């Protein structure tokens, strides 16, 4: 247990989140993120993978719709209800929100918070994004079957690492990023609990573009899922013996 606790001493870094964005090929699907608060255009950012560029237009709400129409890129608008920036007091943070940097982690998909509304100017962007969220949910469901979920990032050497998630009753209670990554064999030997592992690996998806990369990488991660129990754990039937 001491070993497990020590694994969770380094938080998930921005660099780790950027690696996830890189591995999912998000840089080939740029978009504009617009945020509305109290009826004011708080920010408009051009998002290309992990790169953000602040746009100073549109200045007024009245200009917003015509500005969106003239944008060459898909525009995703997050509209907060007036006075509703208050965070959910008991938020259950899904896996993808841990993994992705701002503003990717604000694209709620179908399970949108009732206090804010998400508008997509492009239908295909929205459906592709929902496909990504559902794949992340599948990974989350699988990882949460064990106490420790590991997501290995097979990125550029300096950004490779493993993201660790500790689950209690199916919810993530702590997260961590280890770089350089710990090996599966070390985990199996030392961690003393059930472990599920999978891998994000972009290498095989070099011929794809846009969100197809993310779909393929996440599908591959789902197929790469492996589970193991601690080596010192007794088999279930070890205590069964005939009187």
């Amino acid at each position, binding site marked *: 247990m001491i070993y497990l606790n020590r694994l969770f001493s380094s938080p998930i870094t921005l660099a780790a989140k950027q690696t996830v964005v890189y591995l999912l090929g998000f840089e080939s699907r740029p978009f504009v993120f617009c945020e509305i608060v109290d009826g004011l255009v708080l920010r408009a950012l051009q998002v290309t993978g992990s790169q953000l560029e602040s746009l*100073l237009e549109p200045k007024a709400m009245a200009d917003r719709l015509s500005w969106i129409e003239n944008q060459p890129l898909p525009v995703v608008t997050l509209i907060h209800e007036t006075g509703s920036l*208050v965070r959910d007091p008991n938020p259950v943070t899904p896996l993808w929100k841990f993994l992705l940097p701002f503003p990717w982690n604000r694209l709620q998909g179908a399970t949108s918070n009732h206090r804010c509304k998400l508008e997509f100017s492009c239908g295909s962007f929205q459906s592709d994004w929902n496909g990504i969220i559902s794949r992340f949910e599948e990974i989350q469901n699988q990882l949460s079957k064990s106490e420790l979920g590991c997501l290995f990032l097979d990125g550029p050497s300096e950004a490779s690492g493993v993201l660790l998630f500790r689950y209690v009753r199916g919810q993530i209670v702590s997260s961590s990023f280890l770089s350089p990554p710990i090996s599966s064999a070390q985990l199996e030997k030392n961690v003393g609990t059930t472990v599920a592992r999978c891998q994000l690996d972009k290498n095989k998806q070099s011929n794809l573009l846009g969100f197809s990369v993310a779909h393929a990488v996440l599908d591959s991660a789902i197929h790469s899922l492996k589970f193991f129990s601690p080596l010192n754990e007794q088999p279930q039937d070890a205590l069964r013996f005939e009187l």
Partner: protein
Amino acid sequence: MLDYSNQASTDWSQFFVDGDSSSGNLVIPIWWGSHEQIQGVRDFTKNSRLRLEKLLTLAHQKKRSLNIQLGFSSDERSFPTWTRERLPGSPVPVIHGSEPIEALETTRAPSFLQPAVKDGFLQFLEEVLGILSLYCSPQGPVNSIRFSWGPLELDSHLAETEHLSVYFRQRYGVIGNLNSLYQTCFKDFDTTCSKMGIRTLFDKRPWVAAWDFKNGRSFFLKNVESEIFSRVEQRGLTSVFTMSAGQKVNMKQPQVVFDDMLLESLGEQPVLIPLRIFDQVIPTAIPDFRFTELIKLEALQAQEKIQAMSQWNFSTDTRNVIIFAQRFMRADHATGIKSLLEQGTGLFFPLGLPQWDENLNLISWSSPLQKAKCAIGTEEVWKIRTGAGTLVYPTQTWEKNLGIVLRSLTVLNGMRGEKK
């Protein structure tokens, strides 16, 4: 960092390295919420995870120095559960600080305006300080105790009460002085402090109103701080105790500094939030917020350090600096900048020189004789030599456009070249 109340006490020793002084001071956060599950019942001995004295003894045995962290942060354990049940709480921003640009979120935190919350915390603090005073260096492991208000500094409710009225009376004396500064016609300070009154101030002079609003807000916390300090003095801990509220961040050599009067900023890598009153964003803060995000992103892309003016310590080791400020600048900041100029720093103001302080007094940067028009690269600028330093600003104020940081860095490099 050893978050002891989150670890089994049997695991604590793993965090100490025997006799290894090179491993530095270990940061120990002490959360009020962990030690006081039931109102007025504080646990430092029963639950094995909360045995603070055992932890301090262990650190002493292992010869490790400790930096104690007290106060508040975004951590849920900053406040006991019973304080959260006392509604309404105050909206405070949620600050993670892990990304250059973050989602704008607020949470409800228990308010120090409620006597039970304030008194409860002071009693907890008294007990903690009593324990820590027994383990202070050189006899004990406690090297420093740092108190931080954290996001509570940004609690806008602190300024929405009679405290703001008291603050206005202290600052302006008579209502006529406030009216002449803001060009308003309030009858008394109480009407000024109503919702409508504060909105009027922000409509008339947003920058000055933001200055007053922020000072009015910290006016209440300063009163609480004096109560904290008296307890620290009683325990003889003044030499190790520091209050981080309103203190400067010790960041070396920021290259880009921005005026953050209409924004809230926290942390070394400043997290920005547009100023909010009555749970709503001030419309006049939005253009500042968006422009500041733009320069922040551009500075980060150019790998230059950026810092909010309110957190800049005007240190003497500062190299040439770009300052994004408009017509107003705090009088104390103008004084700090002038002292930097005396010491030889070069300063570039791409948006022009600030002209007025919070009292609408003119800021005097130089005499007209010292001012000369010249070209740095392709940019035409005014150059003023004051002391050993140089102050530069464009002859025509630049538009707030994309690429403004890179353009400013070119001028700054030109200034360096000239100096050589």
